[in-house]
């Protein structure tokens, strides 16, 4: 029986509970991250029975001669400085104290009693987005996590990360575990523990290697594990091929594929090479950017130039900012690029000496009824946009080219959020477009593929695709046209069978 212990409240800083975890790269990264979130106070729950750790204990550690305990600690971080008295007032439902603690909550770390890898399930708030107005950070896969401390509910938005323990899970297991927490698929399955993820990977794709201690997963095992959780794996290989083998990604293909899925709420497993070894991480967000300039008659991918991608890397920590660059051969690689510091502390940056990661494959878990691949959507979208751009150029040679982006969305979110983002200032058109999509278009699938076409002159039109058929047959439900100048050209191309036939929703101001 564990002896009762009190909650501990103390200042964030040297000698705190986080410092007791040692100077690993992950602990140091978390320290810097929390410093830049202006962390001031740590509340420690001395006993926390963590579902993931209990599964790890049952699967592996319980049979060790070391005698691992079955209970963890949980550290909660706050940006407000407060003492135990304030915590007691909040727990006693003092409204001001509750508000203060909730508003300053930064997240939590579960500390496992595993000396070599103590950092268990960790969710920390994103940095404040200083460029939200001009180039917002896209972090759609994030979700809310509720924690309860003596009846006090605290909420943090993020996506769970943890350090690999190299026994129950390696980088592949924890990357997949993070991915399965995503907002887009959390409602499709029960959240598995790391032990369940590793077992699922071995259930039907046996490699001959033992399950525990785990020595890593093959890409086939990752895909099979995804299927074990009633989801479907989507594999996107790099487009730079030599001798019939996928070598790496070009920048556009990598950025386009990642952003399409992250915009859709799906984290992306990045598989590739790190300093000569195979490595897996989980991409959870990206920094948007203006699209490249499209030459006349051409089409650029809107997200080809995104500068940064945010990655859960078990070697470093959650939401590590990586820059996307290319070498002389056009191969995309990722290097940590820490954002400007907020705090004035001297905590070293463990990402500085981290080698470049060169991705070769992406793997994404999607609901089973979403059958369209991001590649098929890109091909269909680029085909349509290129034909429109070519005709516009032929009509008026001075017109700029177009840009295009893709994503998947539940139909309800397209009707509610996506259309609202475009048409909120013109409610009459918004209502007309929503009703037209429901009353004039054949019943649409639960998820729609969205191709969004625009350019320097603004957003021009969306194309909505059925996602429940095969890539060889990708029906279009509707065109939603916002640009009044472009509308007659889209209609004419459809009439000439140069674009697939589908209903055209007039969402123009005219």
């Amino acid at each position, binding site marked *: 029986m564990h002896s009762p212990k009190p909650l501990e409240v103390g200042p964030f800083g040297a000698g705190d509970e986080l410092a007791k975890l040692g100077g690993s790269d992950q602990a140091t990264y978390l320290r810097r991250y929390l410093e830049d979130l202006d962390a001031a106070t740590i509340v420690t729950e001395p006993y926390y029975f963590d579902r993931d750790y209990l599964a790890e204990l049952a699967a592996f550690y319980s049979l060790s001669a070391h005698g691992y305990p079955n209970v963890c600690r949980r550290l909660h971080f706050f940006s407000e400085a407060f003492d135990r008295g304030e915590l007691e007032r909040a727990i006693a439902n003092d409204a001001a104290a509750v508000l203060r603690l909730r508003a300053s909550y930064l997240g939590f770390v579960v500390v496992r009693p595993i000396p070599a890898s103590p950092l268990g399930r960790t969710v920390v708030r994103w940095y404040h987005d200083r460029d939200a107005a*001009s*180039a*917002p950070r*896209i*972090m*759609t896969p*994030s*979700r809310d996590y509720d924690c309860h401390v003596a009846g006090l509910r605290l909420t943090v938005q993020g996506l769970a990360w943890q350090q*690999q323990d190299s026994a129950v899970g390696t*980088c*592949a297991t924890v990357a997949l575990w993070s991915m399965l927490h995503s907002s887009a698929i959390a409602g499709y399955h029960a959240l598995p523990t790391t032990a369940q993820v590793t077992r699922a990977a071995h259930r039907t794709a046996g490699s001959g290697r033992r399950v525990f201690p*785990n020595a*890593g*997963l*093959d*890409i086939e095992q990752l*895909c099979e594990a995804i299927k074990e959780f009633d989801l479907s794996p989507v594999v996107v*290989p790099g*487009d730079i*091929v030599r001798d019939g083998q*996928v070598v790496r990604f*070009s920048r*556009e*293909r990598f950025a*386009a594929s990642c952003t399409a899925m992250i*915009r*859709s709420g799906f984290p992306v497993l990045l*598989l590739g090479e790190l300093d000569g*070894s*195979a*490595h897996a991480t989980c991409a959870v967000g990206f920094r948007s950017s*203006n699209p490249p*300039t499209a030459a006349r008659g051409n089409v650029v991918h809107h997200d080809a130039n995104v500068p940064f991608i945010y990655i859960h890397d078990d070697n470093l920590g959650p939401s590590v900012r990586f820059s996307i660059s290319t070498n002389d051969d056009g191969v995309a690689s990722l290097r940590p690029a820490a954002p400007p510091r907020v705090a004035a502390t001297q905590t070293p940056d463990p990402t500085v000496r981290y080698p470049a990661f060169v991705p070769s494959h992406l793997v994404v878990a999607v609901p089973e009824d979403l059958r369209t691949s991001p590649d098929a959507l*890109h*091909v269909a979208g*680029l*085909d349509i946009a*290129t*034909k429109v751009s070519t*005709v516009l150029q*032929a*009509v*008026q040679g001075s017109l700029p080219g177009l840009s295009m*982006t893709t994503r998947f969305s539940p139909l309800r*979110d397209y009707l509610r*959020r996506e259309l609202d*983002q475009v048409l909120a200032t013109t409610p009459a058109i918004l209502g007309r477009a929503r009703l037209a999509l429901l009353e004039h278009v054949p019943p649409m699938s639960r998820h729609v593929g969205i191709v969004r076409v*625009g*350019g*320097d*002159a*603004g*957003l021009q039109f969306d194309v909505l695709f059925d996602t429940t058929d095969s890539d060889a047959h990708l029906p279009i439900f509707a065109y939603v046209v916002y640009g009044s*100048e*472009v509308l*007659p*050209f889209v209609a*004419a191309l459809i009439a*000439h069978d*140069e674009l697939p036939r589908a209903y055209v929703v007039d969402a123009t101001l005219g």
Partner: protein
Amino acid sequence: MSDDERSQGKTLWNSGRGDPTAFDGLKVPDDLDEIIRRVSKQARAAAAERVKPYQTPVTLATLRYPVK
């Protein structure tokens, strides 16, 4: 968490660059049908070239070692 807080899928268009009025005054020519017929082959060829990076066959057996 609100939708805005997650920047749900926002797309940047025309963020102060280029010419936001580029399409203003674009008129439908009387011979649009003829123009479409004339450039259709060129448009299809351009589209076929543009989509090539997204037509890589899916192959799995390229990672020689398990990822760890």
